[in-house]
């Protein structure tokens, strides 16, 4: 059976991290499972974790009265979910709900932040990775805002 460190090591997000850093990160991680419909986190609550999704699909949602729950994005296997743990005031800005059975690794944000404060190399490595995720999401959001399928033929 693989140790949690080995599982983490094989993920794209943590690839290239030094062994000692993987040990530190694995010390803040645990495996979790969510059933369909279960919330991984809810808007407004304290953001104490982030997740690496291993299986299943998570919907990032926002409640917009009177429309109800609006899905903004889905996150799937290999992807990182959540960065509010990294940015003050450490509150979730959206809901995250399991659409299917979700298996994930949950990382304790407070634990990781403490380790990053005492080991800035680890902090920099993680920051580089999270910045890449944020940039990718920002780019995707910009394309979504373009409403690209709403354009096209204007004649005929």
């Amino acid at each position, binding site marked *: 059976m693989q140790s949690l460190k080995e599982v983490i090591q094989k993920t794209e997000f943590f690839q290239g991290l030094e062994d000692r850093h993987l040990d530190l990160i694995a010390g803040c991680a645990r495996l979790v499972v969510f059933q369909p419909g279960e919330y991984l986190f809810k808007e407004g609550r304290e953001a104490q974790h982030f997740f690496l999704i291993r299986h299943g699909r998570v919907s*990032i949602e926002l409640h917009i009265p009177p429309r109800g729950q609006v899905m903004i994005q889905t996150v799937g296997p*290999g992807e990182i979910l959540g960065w509010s743990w990294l940015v003050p005031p450490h509150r979730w800005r959206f809901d995250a709900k399991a659409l299917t059975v979700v298996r994930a690794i949950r990382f304790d944000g407070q634990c990781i932040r403490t380790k990053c404060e005492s080991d800035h190399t680890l902090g920099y490595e993680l920051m580089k990775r999270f910045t890449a995720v944020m940039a990718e999401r920002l780019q995707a959001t910009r394309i979504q805002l373009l409403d690209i399928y709403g354009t096209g033929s204007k004649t005929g």
Partner: protein
Amino acid sequence: MAPAQRPDNTLSGGPSPWLPQKGTVVSRQRQTHDVITLGLEVPGTFSYHPGQFNMLYVHGVGEVPISISGHRTAENGHTVVFHTIKVVGNVTQALARLKKGESLGIRGPYGSAWPIETFAGNDLVLIAGGIGLAPLRPLFLHVLEHREAFGNVFLLYGARTPADIVFRRDLEQWRKRFDINIEVTVDHAWAGWYGNVGVVTKLVARAPFDPVHAVCYICGPEIMMWFTVQTLRERGVPDTNVFLSMERNMKCAIGFCGHCQYGPEFICKDGPVFPLPKIWKYLRIREL
């Protein structure tokens, strides 16, 4: 570089590329609130290559280019050619109003086709946005018929919302197969949707195809194709293995009137399917 296939631009069985023949509406299938697929019966055999289009003429209203989205042979031996039409103006509105038994003018097929035979053994990645799935559908059906000739096959499709997904029944049927990979994503969704939400480029970034040996066929709004090409380049897909179907306001369909000129190319005659290197430098020129 494999050129896009270019069959003769002559009317099937007809004497002149200008002369429409009669097509009769034999089926109507509503795809979404503004997209409909018409089955048009034409006499005899109608030959075309996936990616080509026909000019459809509504009597007294006007003529528009519409991609061929499939065909079948009717019981009487005639051919039913399917055209999937998005209502954007007067002519498409008139097309969408046609009832079974009514007739229109049809001339074609025109333009270049998706190159496929030369890519046997490669992974195939079909990437569609919105109604762009229509011109890719005959290619996909061809691939399914000759499935053993290719490596992994991916169909990545993006739509605005779940209600805007075209060929939904086809997609549901195709997803039941074990030998193809189909991913659908929408830009916006609400409760009851259990699929992906996000841009189609995200599917492209994550699909497990071999970039060096993948051939990619893209059809959708130009801006979507632009972002998709960026992602394919980031993944290491050679430009020579990427093909796009372009759309412009085509009138004559034989490179005569110049309405669809795109740099030195005519979309109707040299396209609509182009290898990426041939049109890349024109894609972001605003005046074109």
